[in-house]
């Protein structure tokens, strides 16, 4: 279970906080989604979690212990993170890339053993990327690459999985495949914390939704509780209606036309 408690983040050199006291819980065996407009602080939370930006105050806890007090290796053994951007300077094979998920367990001294092999095979199978093993990363499609990154994170055998927009640039089928996979991962007992712009998919798959707005939690709860026009409209600053998707009855957001050229003013 990952807990953000009154987390405040200010980037070094910035004059204002990017995140102003966010509290949220990513519970075990649940899919928790963080949504919100661009610049609302979603990715900053992920970067604070992996120590790329320091917390000004507040805490990030993993089962009641501050994440910042864990060593990097230990944190990575317990929380796997798929960051937003990642481009390889020198292309490797998919199998070699997925094996890097074992780095937090091996460090620079230990040799890989059967346990590592099992974790890699399990992750490869779960992400459905086994047939890609001998491909080079730079020959993969966007959808394949995202699933390979997921496989690498699953190979970490962590108790929590954190993802920053894992379905960016993916088509409908690949997007669905990733969400189905995350759903299965959560059901298998991991805490899954997902940053996403895909409100309608999140509404169908997430157990818990946290809506961020300008670095604060604007709403949190079940998809039914958060996906309401009167909550979403002021946050996204765009006219919209929330309806029910005809297939499964989950809340679905439909942005309306009519505000031509009226862009939002708080883009970062």
């Amino acid at each position: 279970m990952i807990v953000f408690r009154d987390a405040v983040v200010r980037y070094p050199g910035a004059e204002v906080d990017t995140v102003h006291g966010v509290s949220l819980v990513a519970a075990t065996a649940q899919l928790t989604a963080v949504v919100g407009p661009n610049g609302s602080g979603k990715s900053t939370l992920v970067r604070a979690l992996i120590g790329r930006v320091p917390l000004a105050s507040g805490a990030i806890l993993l089962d009641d212990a501050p994440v910042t007090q864990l060593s990097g290796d230990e944190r990575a053994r317990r929380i796997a993170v798929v960051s937003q951007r990642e481009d390889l300077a020198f292309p490797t094979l998919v199998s070699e890339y997925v094996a890097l998920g074992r780095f937090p367990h091996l460090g620079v001294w230990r040799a890989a053993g059967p346990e590592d092999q099992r974790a890699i095979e399990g992750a490869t199978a779960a992400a459905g990327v086994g047939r890609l093993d001998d491909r080079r990363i730079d020959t993969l499609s966007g959808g394949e690459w995202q699933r390979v990154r997921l496989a690498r994170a699953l190979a970490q055998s962590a108790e929590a999985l954190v993802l920053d927009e894992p379905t960016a640039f993916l088509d409908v089928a690949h997007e669905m495949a990733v969400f189905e996979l995350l759903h299965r991962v959560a059901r298998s007992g991991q805490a899954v914390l997902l940053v996403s712009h895909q409100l309608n998919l999140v509404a169908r798959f997430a157990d818990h939704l946290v809506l961020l707005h300008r670095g604060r939690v604007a709403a949190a709860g079940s998809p039914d509780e958060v996906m309401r026009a009167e909550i979403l409209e002021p946050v996204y600053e765009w006219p919209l209606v929330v309806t029910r998707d005809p297939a499964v009855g989950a809340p679905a957001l439909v942005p309306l036309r009519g505000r031509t050229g009226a862009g939002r003013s708080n883009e970062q």
Partner: protein
Amino acid sequence: MRAGRWVFLVAALVAVSLVAIAVGTISIPISGLWDAVRGGGDPLAATVVRTLRLPRVVAAILVGAGLGVSGAALQGTLRNPLAEPYLLGVSGGAAVGAVVATALGLGVVLLPIAAFVGALVAVAAAFIVARAAGGRGDPRVLLMAGVVVGAFANAAIMVLLANAEPNVVRNALWWMMGSVGDATWPQIGVLAVYIVVAGGALVLFGREIDVLALGADAAAGLGVDVDRAIRRVFLVASLVAAATVSAAGLVGFVGLVVPHIVRATGVRRHRPLFVGSALTGATLVVLADLLARILRPPAELPLGAVTALIGVPFFLSKLRQLT
């Protein structure tokens, strides 16, 4: 196939080394090499081999191995296919340190340390220049900064040598263009210790450099303290480069070319890449030194000139891939 690659790399190094020992103003038949190395057979051949050619070839092997590993480590850590100690200004800074140390009369053991200090100053300066130029994500900016720092280091050496004896100046200039011609066994022994220990440390870090090559956020997600890890690799790679500079002066482009050759054979992870780069770098420098001796007889070309003739066209082809 995989084993074949290593057999080939080792065989190439052995073959080039044997030719380099045999060929020269006094040619020695391959069949007589072993006798000459042990000091038997033809006494003239034995003297030439034991006092001139063998130390030269061993020094070239160590220098090439060090430059290859150092270049591969810098490329992986900076995620920059153009990175190498010479172009980053590391070697130039090391040369300033070595010249100062020589002027102060420091011995052969401490010389690499002085070169290392100079290299670190140059690295810091290159990063400051790159930051001033903006464009942190562009691999070409840091290269430009390195070239600027290298030019400054050259100028600093000229100032330091201004009042030196003419023959000291001549020796210094020759050394700055790279040479393993004056290698002595004590020097080679010191170089070997530095290259083996620091190069070995880089091989150990190889797995961490695999992770660093994914980018800062991904590496942090895998538990690596990114800034500290980059600093550590930089320190050790600079030490390796400084050791080669204090023994052989400025030998450019080896660290650039070699890792790309090894990658082209299908090596991707950094541990095998370092081992392959050491072997290939050694082969390349032995070959370049051989060419330096035989291309324009009876004159001898500077080693750094030969490696630059090989390296610059290669650099251009890599630069084109980036744009």
